């Protein structure tokens, strides 16, 4: 993790592109949310793992998913654990359950933290941090 500082602010932590997340971040730069798919049993997973916990097969590929899902759970962070978030508290962190079943931890934009509800339909957006890192985040969408 690297930190950029300016006289006024400290940036949020920027994730490094570890080998297991290279395809994830490549997808995010293209505007695609990628998850791992086991080539043995077809189960999707995220975060990345070397081995499928469902069938123990090591073969996997990265596949795009719809980026649509619902809020499975969320919290509202009030404590500042990193100075990059000092100006944001209270902010929400959400667990999105994607339509394909995988859970993805992220942030929800375009909504106040206290208006978030479990079950709320959401869709992915992509927030460019720098030339290398784009972070998938989510926004509310009209429910079905």
């Amino acid at each position, binding site marked *: *993790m690297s930190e950029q500082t300016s006289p006024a602010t400290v940036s949020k932590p920027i994730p490094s592109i570890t080998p297991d*997340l290279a395809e994830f971040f490549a997808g995010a730069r293209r505007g695609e949310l990628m998850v791992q798919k086991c080539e043995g049993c077809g189960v999707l997973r995220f975060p990345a793992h070397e081995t499928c916990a469902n069938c123990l097969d090591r073969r996997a590929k990265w596949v795009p998913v719809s980026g649509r899902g619902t809020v499975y759970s969320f919290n509202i962070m009030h404590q500042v*654990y990193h100075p990059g978030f000092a100006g944001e508290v209270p902010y929400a962190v959400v667990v999105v359950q994607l339509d394909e079943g995988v859970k993805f931890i992220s942030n929800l934009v375009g909504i106040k933290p206290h208006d978030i509800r479990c079950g709320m339909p959401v869709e992915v957006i992509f927030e460019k941090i720098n030339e290398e890192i784009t972070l998938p985040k989510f926004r509310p969408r009209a429910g079905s």
Partner: protein
Amino acid sequence: MSLRGKCAIAGLGQTRMGKNFDHPNAMGFAVEAVKLALDDAGLTRDALDGLLVNPGITWSENQMASFSLQQALGLRNLRLSAMMNLGGATAAAMIMHAVQAIASGMATTVACVFADAPLRPPSPRKNGGGSAAAYGFARGLNAAYGLFGVNAQYAFVARRHMHLYGTTSDHLGAIAVAQRKWANMNPAAQFCDTPMTLDDYHKSRWVVEPFHLYDCCLVSNGGLAVIVTSSERAKDLKKPPVYILGMGQGHPGGDPMDTLVSGAPIAKETAFAMAGVELSDIQFAELYDCYTFTVLVTLEDYGFCPKGEGGPFVADGKTAPGGSLPVNTGGGQLSSFYMWGMTPVAEAVVQVRGEAGARQVPRHDVCLVSGNGGILSTHSTLVLSSRV
């Protein structure tokens, strides 16, 4: 071969707890705790032939913690030694391992130890001394999204419970208030002199919603040790034996957000069968309480109430002093001190012996103790008793 009642807890050693800096690191607290436990049992260190250690969060550099502690204590010729870590389920799991070793003849007298020193002394630069920063870790994507620490992970699970079952902040607050009432009668509790109403609870600052400050445990410096030996031997020692009637573990795997169930149902099955007890035999309970929410889930998972009804179950104060099911009678980790799984074990020993003073529960012959680690990931159960 049943292990029911074969062994007992014969000694308890507890250092000062909380924002104390009596030792520069966890090892110092561990040594003091073992010394106190030996004194309590009326034993000298020569009696020990087993040493089990649950390293706290500040022992990470110490990959052979039980050997390091052996050296620090000057112990020779041990027959059992291990560092164990199932998070908050470890304390009871160490006791199980000790019982198995003693019953099988591998050892006779085993010290089980937890110590930690995550709090730093106040410095001129920071008016700290109370920071729980050691538990605020995050890396990679989680950090980028601002998801830091264990509080935030448990908050996800608690939110699911609220969403599915209608659990409220009032319900969580009822647990915090009940335990504070117990702490107000415990001179060793950090909040002994600080009463708390449900209103006080609601006014306490948010840490991470749905958790207020008083939903979260008191990260502490300190050390706790118990001495486990055969019941035969324990009868001849200084303190009344606390017999170990039943023991079990349960580690469900998977995602606790999906199930909202701890490992308690699995661990209970083994422990209660060994002990020959039913839930109605349990007179009081010392339940792992890293958060109020953990107590609520644990009560459900042992079957004190159906799944999802933990909130209404605790709302009437039945777990508070004078209630029908005393729970966490020393104030627990929420109002007394956080020593992982040793907090409930220690209070159980004090109560079963009848040494709890103003907070002594009237019926104290059969006690349920639970440990819980990770995010409802690991679980251990003990059934302790004043008689076999």
